[in-house]
């Protein structure tokens, strides 16, 4: 996960927008048992059964007083969230304030409901599990966090948060819903590229004069240096080491294009959603890896009306990834849309060959020099 700007919003809690009492299967067992106790007490005039029936009735009342009173006094705020890639987990952090003067809150589950105020917990583009607040003292605060997995790129709207608890006896599930508007941007996945970017870099090095950077995966000789722990055995220059009397290794370098463009082919727009997502993931992966090696990467997707001018640095990469996160097929070009110029190097990513759910053959065409095409695979 790269460093990202604090754009994902948080929201401060207001009063609950709704509350709900929900009977669960223990409630029916409890009611049946209480009914049995009442009938047994009345029928057999067994005094301890009268007492037990009284305890059962009081259990309901006490349960309502304890958890109902506490739940209505809870307030929640969501702390600023991060920006995950698809497949990564996102920590949703909450701060809960208990306004009750006497009673603490225990075992409170905090769930994101998305934009649907009622119903089951669901958050688009995420696999969610509730956060649990073990304890919140009276007139105090507690913190809870949920780890949700991002499943799809894009912008997710956070709106309703539900606090629920069946404390103390599990008879009734009491829940209150708060409106906490916010958004989470999920970036495309950065997948293992299986040599895709290396081959791209190799091809590019042969066809253009780019920047030479030291790269263990490079093919060009760069220098000889002392062996350091962690260096690969294959990189040891044995003859040189023998003549120098100390262990030295060969350093290699690769040439990178200075300002490559990643061009998303029009075939991606018409592809099924799963394949399109994988192509976008491939683009994000290549861009990330190229940027890691110092390249200033640009993006152009005419079918999505998106372009990002090549610029060095993490911020530029983040802008590119955001663009990839939100790109969708559209008829209109974005304002100031610009593609690679005639002299720019472009890595065109299209779809072709065998595709699968977790595997895509991205067709990458490197331009800017003699026409060349290379096939590489990219998959998770």
């Amino acid at each position, binding site marked *: 996960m790269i460093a990202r700007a604090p754009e994902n919003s948080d929201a401060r809690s207001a009063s609950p927008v709704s509350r709900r009492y929900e009977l669960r299967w223990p409630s029916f067992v409890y009611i049946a048992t209480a009914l049995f106790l009442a009938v047994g007490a009345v029928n057999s005039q067994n005094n301890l059964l009268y007492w037990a029936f009284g305890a059962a009735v009081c259990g309901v009342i006490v349960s309502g007083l304890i958890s109902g009173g506490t739940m209505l006094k809870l307030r929640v705020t969501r702390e600023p969230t991060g920006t995950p890639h698809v497949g990564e987990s996102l920590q949703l952090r909450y701060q809960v304030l208990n*306004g009750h003067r006497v009673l603490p809150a225990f075992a409170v589950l905090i769930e994101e409901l998305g934009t649907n105020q009622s119903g089951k917990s669901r958050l688009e583009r995420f696999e969610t599990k509730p956060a649990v607040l073990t304890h919140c003292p009276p007139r105090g605060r507690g913190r809870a966090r949920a780890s949700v997995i991002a499943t799809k790129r894009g912008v997710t709207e956070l709106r309703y948060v539900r606090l629920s608890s069946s404390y103390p006896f599990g008879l009734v599930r009491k829940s209150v819903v708060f409106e906490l508007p916010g958004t989470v941007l999920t970036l495309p996945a950065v997948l293992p590229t299986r040599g895709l970017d290396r081959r791209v870099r190799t091809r590019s090095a042969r066809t253009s004069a780019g920047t030479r950077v030291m790269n263990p995966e490079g093919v060009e000789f760069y220098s000889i240096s002392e062996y350091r722990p962690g260096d690969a055995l294959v990189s040891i220059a044995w003859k040189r080491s023998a003549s120098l009397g100390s262990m030295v290794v060969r350093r290699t370098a690769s040439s990178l294009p200075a300002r490559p463009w990643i061009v998303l082919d029009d075939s991606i727009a018409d592809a099924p959603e799963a394949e399109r997502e994988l192509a976008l993931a491939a683009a994000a992966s290549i861009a990330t890896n190229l940027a890691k090696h110092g390249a200033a990467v640009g993006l152009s997707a005419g079918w999505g009306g998106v372009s990002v001018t090549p610029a060095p640095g993490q911020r530029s990469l983040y802008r590119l990834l955001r663009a990839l996160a939100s790109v969708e097929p559209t008829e209109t070009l974005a304002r100031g849309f610009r593609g690679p110029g005639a002299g720019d190097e472009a890595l065109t990513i299209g779809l072709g060959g065998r595709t699968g759910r977790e595997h895509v053959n991205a067709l990458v065409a490197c331009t800017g020099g003699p026409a060349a095409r290379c096939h590489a695979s990219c998959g998770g």
Partner: protein
Amino acid sequence: MTPRTFERRLLTVSVLAIVMYALAEQSIAVFVLAIAGVVFGYVVGRSRGARTPLPMPVVIALIVAVTSLALLRAAMGSGFTVGLFCEFIIMLLAVKMLDRRRARDDAQVLTLAVFLCIGAILTSNNIGVGLTILIIAPLLISAVLGYQLVAAHEAAGLSTAPPIRPTIRRDARRVVIVTTIAVFAGSTLMFLLFPRELGERAFGSWREVAGNAQTGFDDEIELGSIGRISESATPVLDLQVLDPDGRSIGSIGRVFYLRGAALSVYQQDPRDGRWKWSPERHNDQPDTNFRSWDTLAALRESDPWQIEQRITLREAAAGTASLFAVNEPMFVWFDQTTNWSHNSISFTFTRNLASGLLPDMSGAQFSYAVRSLDRAAQGIDSIQRSQERVPVVGGTVPPEALELARRILTDAGIDPDPQTRPVDRDGAAARAIESFLQAEGGYEYTLSPLPVRPGIDPTVDFLTITRAGHCEYFASAMALMCRSIGIPARVITGYVATEYNDLTGRYVVRQSNAHAWVEVLVARDTTARRQAPGGVDRYLELWRTYDPTPRNDFQNLHQKPTSWLWARAKSMAEAIEFAWVSNVVGFSSNSQDRALGVSTIAAWARRAEARVSSRFTSRDNTAVIRAAAIGGLVFGATLGLGWAASALASRVARHGFFGWRLPAWLRFRRRGGRGFRPLLGAPELQQAYDAALEFVKAAAPAAPESDPLAVRVEAALAGEHEPPVASQARRIARTLYGVAYGAQTPDGPARKALAADARAVRDWSRKRR
């Protein structure tokens, strides 16, 4: 509560539930086997890993086996009784202990433990059960609360244990204590106020008392069999003996014989000698002086009685509960206990016979009082007997008994021939036989069962060969010898009240106090002889008590010597137990009326029940409909009252009551009212927060409320002209942000500065608005 603590509590609750049932059932076997099974399940379940129990097919096979066994026993036995249900629950509990995969399984274990507790309550209401309830209730509440924490973490997909800090522990303890006190208080209130006798037996009799229950007492004697002699120290009844002035006449060392059944028919059988009760001989004077308990005190002065006995049967036997009394009763008063309907009485109770049968007592506690005359003061039966006496009353007499009786009387200088012996010498003759059996004959008292010789009458066997036996043999021998010499005699079974508790002023009568003795019809005294017309003597006679059992041997066997300290402790424990029995177990509608004056409610409820049930009396399914109607009535009333009370409390809390309003801190807050106010822990911080809000509303009313306060403050300051309080507003926002998100705590000077900033900002905002 950590999962480990919760698991330990789960085990404790399960074991205590078993202990409660074992105490109710008074079964050592249940105690040992069930606890061993549950602990084994717990240990094996843990040793295989916290959540890696037995394979599911094995668990299913065990559950099927347990269920099949229970169904088989129900089909082959007497149906699905409470005892069978509890044993089924115990077996399920042991299986579930082996199968705790998820939090839900722990909940099932807790539920089974609760069911077992209910089964124990249905089985018995003894003090052991009561004390165990007091112990298990808070533990159960604590375990359920702990389960909620564990279940919540499981729902959140967390595998690690919830963090337990001292504050959590303290708050959890507080919740458990508050919940326990509230539940105990509410349930006690329900216990006191719930109308009794409402819907009694609407579903028939639930409880099946174990058929082999040993009470020591029986209204029949089979000498050839082991009998029902018991050495158990389990209390059977409590006896209080009063004189006409209401003073207790019981004391340590004074013994009262509580007559239960008079057995007047002896069947000489090749295998056993059997003494039986003969109702046709004694129901000639049915006594109808049954009165309700509340008239007892009012009638104290009006009746010519001399001894009042107040008796509480702790657990009457089902179907044939016998009444016990010291003397021939004149009047009987019944406490209208909840378990017994006054209208259902149909027992044959006579003055001569202190035993009677109550219908279907179902093992309930039962209290009554008997008033009687002192038989030593005057005879009750005036019987005209001619010199032609009937030699035998009821059954035959073995010749060996006659021979031995003649020898005893001859040795004592008393004419053994009933034709020639004066009637007023009958008492001396009976005394001689009693002395012979007690001491002179060299008979041994033993509780050990003796082998029955085939073809010999057991009484004859006792008198001539074994010369050893328990009280029934002694009583039978004396009664037969008296009859053989023409003196009417009968065997009485009942209890000997010997154990006086000076703390309660009552005798505690235990199963081991069960006894058999003899009543012989003798002349009251020689002055009672009168010459009747025709040369026939008339005597004022009475049934006098004789106990031929060697007293020292009897007491040595039944009363273990104890130290003073132990005796005092035992007295205190028994006093507590009696208080439990009389005040909790025996709590009845009369108790309600006396203690709380709720007779109106109870009467209304009973009338309502009668009215509802009368509508359905003509139908075949009366019982079911009646029960449903009663159940609905009770639940509807309970729920309705609860709802009304809740609504009233809510209304009073919100709007007050006829002008009177609750203090502010007790009032309910209106939902959706003032909105969120963070609890910042200090008044200066709250004031600063309010001031910042006012500032934002005044300076940037369009700023979205969802933004953090610091952002809204900055938005308010982003205009062309910064307000004069900009620096103060920024400081406030920064401080609040640090408190809310940075866990910062401003010190004293900082708070003062903050308060000053807040005042300045608030003043400016108000002017601006």
